[in-house]
């Protein structure tokens, strides 16, 4: 359970702009252990997707980006692999599903073919066998009557089903690690719930690690074992789920938790609002990147950039000079509210 399968150390991904490099990701370190679901959360544009795609090196290195740091998978640094070797890892050892199931499937080929394509790219099996397996996969992901669906085109499926097909493609070669980049943002809550439970089930059944990128703390709380919080291209906090929700240490994490209207919180209580501006990627402040919006900021925060380090009393890693000083927020309001409405909800559905 604790054997790491993916370790990222100080990853830096910079986009080539016409007058220099634009570091969209600068300082991401995280570890995914075998069988673990790791959540990555953060604001839009903070570099979650770039991180995910950097792992598979999906950007064009000749023109688009420059990678630095280390991504080690099973002891091999992916960033040092040749293009061919990288191809053999993609979809095979590590696979990925994207945010938008509506556009992530090629509209002109039947879905079955697209699943089979992944298998044929990596495995030596006959077309027939591949087809058989594809149907099994469709079944596994909970698509009714997979035989017929196999020959259907993406537009003939609903959003939820398409996302299942995406998952089936990702699972085609039984990867050890699945990277899911906001797999449910385009879907309705009810469908989201189905997909999330499917992922959780696959994680258990296949002992497959998942790197789950999302902006929804609710999903993190319900599905993940570990959480990585990102802000402006950096990891600012990593912690186990319980720890993070119980005692968030980074001011940004705290802000996130408090700004969210919750279904289980006291109604009408004002949300916490933080002001301040977000710096641009090409004009980053010298010190901490959160400094412009942080209410705890000190002189030091303005001048020196903090590093990701363990904090006293918890297992979390936090990128904050004041992590030790910041008062631990009491456990989320939900605890009190939960006894109210929510239990009832559960009951009513199950009844």
């Amino acid at each position: 359970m604790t054997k790491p399968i993916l370790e990222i150390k100080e990853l830096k991904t910079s986009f080539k702009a016409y007058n220099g490099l634009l570091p969209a990701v600068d300082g991401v370190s995280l570890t995914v252990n075998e069988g673990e679901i790791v959540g990555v959360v953060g604001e839009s544009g903070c570099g979650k997707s770039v991180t995910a795609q950097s792992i598979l090196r999906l950007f064009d290195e000749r023109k688009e980006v420059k990678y630095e740091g280390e991504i080690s998978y099973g002891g091999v640094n992916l960033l040092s692999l040749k293009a061919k070797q990288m191809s053999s890892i993609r979809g095979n050892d590590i696979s990925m599903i994207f945010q938008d199931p509506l556009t992530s499937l090629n509209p002109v080929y039947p879905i079955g073919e697209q699943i089979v394509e992944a298998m044929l790219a990596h495995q030596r099996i006959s077309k027939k066998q591949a087809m058989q397996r594809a149907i099994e996969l469709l079944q596994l992901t909970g698509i009714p009557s997979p035989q017929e669906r196999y020959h259907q085109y993406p537009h003939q499926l609903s959003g939820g089903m398409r996302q299942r097909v995406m998952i089936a493609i990702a699972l085609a070669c039984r990867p050890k690690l699945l990277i899911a980049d906001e797999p449910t943002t385009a879907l309705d809550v009810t469908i989201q719930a189905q997909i999330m439970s499917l992922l959780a089930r696959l994680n258990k059944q296949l002992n497959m690690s998942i790197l789950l990128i999302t902006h929804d703390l609710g999903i993190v709380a319900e599905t993940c074992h570990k959480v990585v919080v990102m802000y402006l291209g950096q990891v600012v906090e990593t912690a186990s789920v319980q720890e993070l929700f119980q005692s968030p240490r980074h001011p940004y994490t705290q802000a996130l938790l408090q700004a969210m209207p919750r279904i289980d919180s006291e109604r009408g209580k004002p949300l916490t609002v933080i002001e301040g501006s977000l710096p641009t990627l090409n004009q980053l402040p010298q010190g901490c990147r959160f400094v412009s919006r942080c209410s705890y900021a000190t002189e030091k925060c303005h001048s020196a950039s903090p590093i990701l380090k363990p904090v006293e009393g918890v297992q979390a890693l936090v990128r904050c000079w004041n992590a030790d000083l910041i008062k631990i927020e009491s456990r989320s309001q939900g605890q009190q509210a939960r006894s109210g409405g929510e239990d009832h909800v559960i009951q009513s559905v199950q009844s």
Partner: protein
Amino acid sequence: MAIYVLKRLLALVPTLFIMSVIVFIIIYLIPGDPARVMLGDGADEATIQQVREQMGLNQPVLPQYINWISGALQGNFGESYFLGKSVMAAIGEHAGPTFSLAVLALLLSLCTAIPLGIAAAKHQGGLADKLLTAFSLLGMAIPGFLLSLFLVLLFAVKLKWLPVSGYASLQDGVWSYLKHLILPAVSLSPLMGAIIARMVRSSMLEVMNQSYVKTARAKGVSEHRVIYKHVLRNALIPIITVTGGAFGTLLAGAAVIETVFNIPGLGQLLVHSVARRDYAVIQGIVLFIAFLYVAVNLIVDLLYVVADPRVRLE
């Protein structure tokens, strides 16, 4: 599908109607008349009037138009004053050369445009891309008739490889047929090639940014397969659209080239018919070209169905 095609063809009726009215108005406005052209320089006024009378040209426009349209509705588009045959027959004879020319020019354009477009999209900003920019700009800026002058000078007059002008039908032998069409087709193709190449490039680039291409890459599919299987196939619809448009334009717009190369095509026939005021033929050709235009568009739409399973005709 048959119903769909039928519907589309029916939708053509108002367009054709409007066109026929426009043509009639133009004909009404153009001075000069066929009787005078036929009787030539120095014919006396009395004879001309007599022939005009016999041709029905002395009627007012409206009866003339009604006459014509009621014939047209029964599939009779009239007789040419000069060709000694029905308009339909004349068009049928002249459509072949135009069609051959358009097809050959289109093939030439496609053969240059598609590889160039793909290469340019694959290596955006690279050599192929720059080449494409140069090619497309020049292709659009050099008029076909200008190009044709120099092509004739070089390949026909100086080198004597190809004939200067004229047309041979397929029955006269494939080589003879091609020989006569090569220069005109080459003169016509740069413009089409330029437009198609641009479209191939931009359409490919557009598709390359789609997330399903990323999905394909994330599956570990080879780059070659990504380009040719995933990107090109999806980039096809806009390419088909411009190609169809280009073909339509070729069919309709080869008049100048046909004149330069003395190819007995529709364009030339129309130019001649305007010159000698062969009214029925002018009407017929204009409507026929419009019909072709729509037919090409219809075929393009039908091709969409093949290219993209999302498109359905019902």
